[in-house]
Structure formats: structure tokens, C-alpha cells
């Protein structure tokens, strides 16, 4: 009897959380629902003239970015997880570090490189290659190039987590049946990678659709730039929320597609530490190393060199700015939000266990995603309106709590998604066994459940930490007076085109992100070795 009650309580608390997750958006749409007479003209214009182009642009961009990041991530995952590639520990780190770059920083760096007046095309023209020297970079392919470089780790990491758990015996079995390595790759490993790859692609797709900064640098119109245009230039919050609703619909479609596919997860888990499946010969080894080298060069080394050069030029002017307090504020925000998301995600994932047969689950899970799928400034308005209605006064009086809640709401799904797939691999019988042995529920949670999820929890915290440090529009709007962060400082300078001066802040941000990534990946590895 007690068991039933517990289950129900779990269900109710889950419903409670997911409905809370919907509130800001509900308030946003209440606010935007009635389009005032004076806005009707704006909305008609947006709907008839702007939206068709946006659909084409967004679709094109999402597809190209997903293809681009998968083309980088899939081979990398195989090389790093299944072969005896030299210096794997170094590559493990360099392939995660690109996450530390805000996309708008990468975008600016690459537009700077590949613009007509930039060094690369100038070089080509001077060398006499006029076709190359007049190449256009500011188009869908250029944006997708930047997104792929900045977002591929989101696909790489989940694939690696699955490949790590593939049983070596499967391979031996395949060999003993006389099947070739290629056959094993095609028939076993690739299908196995499809689920995590699709999960990663969904994240990439949403990041792409919710990005504002990078597409602005390219002057490439997407939903976010038009939402911003409707809001701040046409002054029509109604049109902006309607556009947001469309954007949200597409993100939810992606999400449901993904949760439909990930149901077909085949557990082939082994907890044994594994050796390399494939020993590479010289030529493939060279090819693999050059691939790793090229990816690392473009996603990491080149951008860092550019930031360092810019910072060097702007160093003296910018030093007076109070970077110490900016760093402190950034860290504080990232830690609080990272921590609160980790705790909430674990509670949610725990409540979700054994419920994967339930039909309502994907629907309610999708509510947590809402904050992530929309551009930050729209989410900020929603959170703002919610608390304004609850408190009956300006939510700014909540101080830091407001921005922490806002960011937690925005990135909750990042934490949740990172932990949830692995949690599904825990066999429900473990819990039953633990109970039948008379162990308390807490014993099971702390001795079995949490340790199993530790690797994912670390990744979840890391992802959120880096996302929060990079986040700009929501922080900018909801932060209390005086609580500037590195990203708001970068915004200040970049919106005026002062990239050299912004570089110092960006560099700090990237270093901050990278040290977190380094720390976490070291921890992650110690943990793996400890088993």
C-alpha cells in the first residue's frame, strides 16, 4: 500500500514540476495573445512577408548544421572510443573545449577571417586566385560551418558514452562468426550510435534555432532575429510571441521525433573497462590524427590565437575595467545555476524511472524543454511577467534570485537530457532486489543509482556551467543593478563593434569555460579508472 502512495506522490510532484515549467511561457502568451489594433498591421506584415523566408532559412540552417556537426562528431567518436589512437587523453580534452566558446565569438572570428577585407581572401586575391578571393562566406554554409565547429561536442559526447559501454564480447563474437570489421561497424556499432547521435542532433538543432548572436554577425535572418526585430523595432510583443510560438512548435517536433526514436534503445552494456577494438595501421592512424588535428585547429587553436592577439592590442585600455568582479559574478552565477539544475534534474530523472512505458511522459518531459528551445530574451520576458504577476510588483526586487531562477529555467533541459538517457539503462530489478534485501530507498539511491549516474551528472553540471557563463540576453535583462558578468560586458563592447576590446572578456570567458571542462574531464576520467 505504501508503495502505491509513494508512486502517486512521485507522479504528482512530476506533474507539479512540469506545470511550473510551463508557467512563464503561459504568461508570455497571455501577454502576447491579443494583438492591439495598432499591431495588426505589423503582424500581417510579419506573417505574410517575413515568415516564409524564415522557414526556408531556419530549415536550411538546422539541416546544414546537423550534417556538419555529425560529420565531425561521428568519426571522432569512433576514433577516440574504439581505436588505439595516440595521445587519446589530450584529444579527449581538446574535443570538448570548443564548448567554451560562445557561438557569437566564433562567428565574429570567422567572419573576420573570411570577409573580403579579411586576411584569408586578401591572401587569395594577392596570390592571383580571384574566384577564391571573392568567395562569399556570409551565407547559410558559413553560419553552419561556425555552428558545426562550436556544437559538435554535443553529438560527440553522447555517442562516446554509449560506445564506452559496448561489450567487447560482441566484437569477439562477430569476429568468430567470420564477419569483417566493416560488417561489425555497419551492423552493430553504427545502429547503436544512431540513438545518441539523434539526441545530440536535437540539441544542436535547438541551439541553432535559439541562437541570436552568431546569426546576427552573419546578418542571416532566422526566427530569433525576427522575433527580436518584431519586438524591438516593430515594437510588437504580440508578433514576437506569435513567432516564438512557431519556433517552439518546431523545437517540440524535433523533441518528439527524438523521444520516439530513443525508445528503441538497445542495451548492450558492459561495465568492464575495455580495450581498443581496432588497432590502427600506420596510414589510417595518420589519417585519423590529421582529422583530429584539423578539427582541433579550426575549433580551438585558431580562435584562441585570434582572441589572444586582439586582447594583446586592447590590453592596456581594458585593464581598468573591473574584470575581477566580472569573473567573480560569472562564476557565482554559473555555480548556483549549475548546482540547482543538477539537483532538480536528478529529482526529475529519479521520478521518471520505470515510467518509460507511460504515454504521458514525453509530453510532460517536453515542458522542461520550453526554456531551452526559445531565444533567451523571450524567455526572460516570460519569467519577468510570471513574477510580476505573482509578486504584484517589479520582479527586479528579487535581486539575484530572479536571474538564477531564470537561468535555471532556461537550461534545465540541458541537465535533464544529459542524465536521463543513462538513467534509463539502470535495470529496474536492481531497485527491487535492493528492496527485497530490506535496504532503504536512500541506500539504493546513494549506493547504486547516484554512483551509476555520476559521470553524466558531472557532464550535466559542466554543460550547464558553460552555458550559463556564455548566456547573454537573459542575464542582461534579469540581472540586478550592478551585477555585470563577462558575457554582459562582451555584449556591451561587441554591440558597438569593438571586438578587440571585447576579446579580453571573451578570452577570460573561454579560459573559465576551459578550466571547468578540464577539471571535469579529469574528474570524469579518474572516476572511470576507479571502476
Amino acid at each position, binding site marked *: 500500500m505504501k508503495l502505491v502512495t509513494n508512486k502517486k506522490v512521485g507522479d504528482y510532484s512530476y506533474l507539479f514540476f512540469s506545470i511550473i515549467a510551463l508557467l512563464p511561457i503561459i504568461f508570455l502568451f497571455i501577454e502576447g495573445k491579443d494583438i492591439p489594433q495598432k499591431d495588426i498591421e505589423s503582424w500581417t506584415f510579419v506573417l505574410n512577408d517575413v515568415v516564409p523566408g524564415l522557414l526556408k532559412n531556419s530549415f536550411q540552417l538546422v539541416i546544414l548544421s546537423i550534417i556538419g556537426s555529425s560529420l565531425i562528431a561521428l568519426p571522432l567518436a569512433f576514433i577516440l572510443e574504439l581505436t588505439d589512437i595516440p595521445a587519446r587523453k589530450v584529444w579527449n580534452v581538446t574535443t570538448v573545449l570548443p564548448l567554451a566558446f560562445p557561438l557569437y565569438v566564433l562567428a565574429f572570428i570567422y567572419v573576420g577571417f573570411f570577409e573580403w577585407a579579411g586576411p584569408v581572401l586578401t591572401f587569395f586575391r594577392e596570390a592571383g586566385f580571384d574566384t577564391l578571393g571573392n568567395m562569399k562566406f556570409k551565407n547559410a554554409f558559413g553560419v553552419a560551418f561556425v555552428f558545426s565547429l562550436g556544437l559538435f561536442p554535443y553529438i560527440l559526447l553522447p555517442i562516446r558514452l554509449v560506445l564506452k559501454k559496448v561489450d567487447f564480447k560482441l566484437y569477439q563474437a562477430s569476429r568468430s562468426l567470420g564477419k569483417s570489421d566493416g560488417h561489425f561497424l555497419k551492423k552493430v556499432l553504427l545502429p547503436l550510435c544512431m540513438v545518441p547521435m539523434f539526441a545530440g542532433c536535437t540539441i544542436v538543432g535547438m541551439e541553432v534555432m535559439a541562437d541570436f548572436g552568431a546569426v546576427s554577425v552573419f546578418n542571416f535572418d532566422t526566427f530569433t532575429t525576427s522575433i*527580436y526585430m518584431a519586438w524591438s523595432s516593430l515594437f510588437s510583443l504580440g508578433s514576437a510571441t506569435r513567432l516564438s510560438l512557431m519556433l517552439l512548435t518546431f523545437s517540440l517536433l524535433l523533441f518528439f521525433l527524438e523521444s520516439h526514436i530513443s525508445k528503441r534503445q538497445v542495451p548492450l552494456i558492459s561495465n568492464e573497462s575495455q580495450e581498443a577494438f581496432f588497432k590502427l595501421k600506420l596510414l589510417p592512424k595518420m589519417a585519423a590524427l590529421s582529422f583530429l588535428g584539423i578539427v582541433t585547429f579550426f575549433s580551438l587553436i585558431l580562435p584562441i590565437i585570434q582572441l589572444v592577439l586582439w586582447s594583446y592590442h586592447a590590453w592596456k585600455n581594458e585593464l581598468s575595467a573591473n574584470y575581477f568582479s566580472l569573473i567573480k559574478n560569472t562564476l557565482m552565477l554559473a555555480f548556483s545555476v549549475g548546482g540547482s539544475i543538477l539537483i532538480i534534474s536528478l529529482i526529475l530523472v529519479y521520478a521518471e524511472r520505470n515510467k518509460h512505458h507511460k504515454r504521458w511522459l514525453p509530453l510532460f518531459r517536453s515542458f522542461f524543454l520550453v526554456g531551452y528551445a526559445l531565444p533567451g530574451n523571450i524567455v526572460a520576458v516570460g519569467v519577468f511577467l510570471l513574477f510580476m504577476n505573482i509578486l504584484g510588483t517589479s520582479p527586479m526586487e528579487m535581486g539575484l534570485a530572479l536571474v538564477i531562477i531564470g537561468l535555471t529555467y532556461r537550461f534545465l533541459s540541458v541537465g535533464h537530457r544529459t542524465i536521463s538517457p543513462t538513467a534509463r539503462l539502470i535495470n529496474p530489478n536492481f531497485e527491487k532486489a535492493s528492496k527485497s534485501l530490506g535496504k532503504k530507498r536512500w541506500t539504493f539511491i546513494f549506493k547504486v543509482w547516484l554512483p551509476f549516474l555520476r559521470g553524466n551528472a558531472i557532464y550535466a553540471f559542466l554543460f550547464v556551467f558553460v552555458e550559463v557563463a556564455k548566456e547573454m540576453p537573459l542575464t542582461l535583462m534579469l540581472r540586478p543593478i550592478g551585477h555585470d558578468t563577462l558575457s554582459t560586458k562582451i555584449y556591451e563592447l561587441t554591440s558597438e563593434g569593438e571586438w578587440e576590446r571585447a576579446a579580453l572578456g571573451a578570452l577570460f570567458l573561454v579560459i573559465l569555460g576551459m578550466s571547468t571542462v578540464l577539471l571535469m574531464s579529469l574528474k570524469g576520467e579518474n572516476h572511470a579508472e576507479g571502476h
Partner: protein
Amino acid sequence: MKYLSIASILLFTAYAQAKSLTVYTSRKEHLVKDIFKTYEKETGVKINYKTGKAGALIQNIKAELKDPKVDIFMTVDAGNLWYASSEGLLESTKSDVLTSHVPAHLRDRDNRWFGLSVRARTTVVNTNLVKKGTNISYEELAKPEWKGKLCLRTSKKVYNQSLVAMLIGTHGYDKAKSIVKGWVANKVDIFSNDTNVLKAVAAGQCAVGIVNTYYFGRLIKKQPKLPLAIMWPNQKSYGVHINVSGAGIVKNSKHQEDARKFLEWLASDEAQKQFAQVNMEYPILKTAPQTDIVKSWGEFKPNTAFNLTDAGKLQKKAIKLMHEVGYK
């Protein structure tokens, strides 16, 4: 003794609280910080401020309207100021100082906002590609002889929306449309900011670009040898399009009196000098001195016939127009 000191501290805090103003501004921190400090030093009134994007700040003010935490809204571009006032967020301010210091075309007709510095949206040319003394105007740039020679900033920037709004106000919708259509036909590329427009002009990707004066000032200060020069447009007609950065007092502000004093101070000789200097803009006050760099650009005829309030009113039309002719 102990109690006395506590009491005096309390008194002091109460005093300090009474004498403070809060400013929401879309101006960048490094452009306003020092001038706020100067005011604090001179008057003891503490200026708290929060920076952000104009749209978000306006949303904040709207939400707080019944019980505002903010006294002054300060932003760039008349379009933003117009919107804030048209939404009823700004208080009409009676001040002889402000009305005498700020020329009529640079402030709201009902005195809800006042321009505090002026920037001109001028044409800048590559001196190797455009001869000195060439007749240049916004209208001229639409003609076929400029084909493949024009660089523009994105139409999403409010500066260009105001410029096109001015063209609509001056010529009517259809004529303005044919002008902007001509620009699009002549353009080589569109950039996300003015600095990149200037760099493209300097590199010879195009011969002319339309930018705000201070962006030119900043770039040329860093790289004086670039083959760039300001060529004031429309000097034989209505004059170069200008815009302002400005401010107004927030409706229901609890410190109207102090806020008005602060605005008056910002429009005064001394503050004007600092305010304009820090961003290489033009002071609103004729008597305030210009910096040497700004002076070196020479005298020009500004467009005084166009009241900037109309830039806000016509902004939606401008956006529609630019979309229709494919100006991205």
C-alpha cells in the same frame, strides 16, 4: 557614544538614500560611467545604473510603471525614445534650461525626452576611389554610376531604420522606396556593424559606405593611415541625417526634481563637453567645445527640417519598405 555613532551612520545612510538616482540605459557602460561619477562628485547624488538593450529596458520600465525603481531612461536613437514616450513611460518635463539648450528638432514635441548628443549618419569614402568634391547624397547613391560601389550596414540596425524613415518623411513612401531599391541594386555587401562597413571601404571592396560619425572617429584614431574620409552628403539639399542619444524622466519617478536637475546638468556646458567627447559625438549645445578629431571633420549642414519624433513614428514603415526592396 556608541549609540550616537550608530545614529549618525543611520542618518547618513538615510541621507545617502534620499540623494540617489537610478538610470536605465542602453548606452554602454564605458560611455556613461565617468560622467555619472563626475556628477556624483559634484553634487553628492549617487547615480545607480543598469545597462541593457533598449527593448528589454523599456519592458522593465513598463512593468514597474506603478512603482518605478528607475528615474531616468537614457538611450540612443530617437526611434527608441519615441517608442518609450508613445507608450506613456516618460514624463513631460518643464525646464527652461532644457528647452533653451536642446534645439527643438532634437527633442520631443511634448518635452518627454531630450537629445543630449548628436551623431550624423554620413557617407565615408575611399579616398583612392572617390574624387574630392564629388557630389554625394543619399539619393545620388541610388543612381547606376554607383553600381558595385556601395557598402551598407544591416537594415535591422535602428540607425538605418531612422535614416530610411527620414527619407520617407522627406520624399514620401514611393520615392523613398525607389531610392533604397537603388542602394540595394548598387550594394556590394551588407555588414553587421559600421566598423566592418568602414573596413570594407578602406580595403576597396566598395567605394562608399553609410556610417555614424563616431565609428569613423574610433577607427581612424586607431589606424590613421586608412584611405578613408568623411564626405558630407546632401550639403546642397536638406543636409546630412542626424540622430541623437538622449534621455527622459520616467513616469511616476519618485525623484522628479533631482532627475530634472541631472538632465539639466547633462545639457550644461561642462557635461556636454565630456558627454560628447567620450564617444566622439557632437555636443547638443553649440557653445560646448568639440574634440580636435571631431573638429577636423569640418563644418557640415545638418538636416534640421526633419523632427526626430517622426523617425520613431515612421520606423515601422521604414522596416516594411526595406523588406520590400530586399535590403537585408
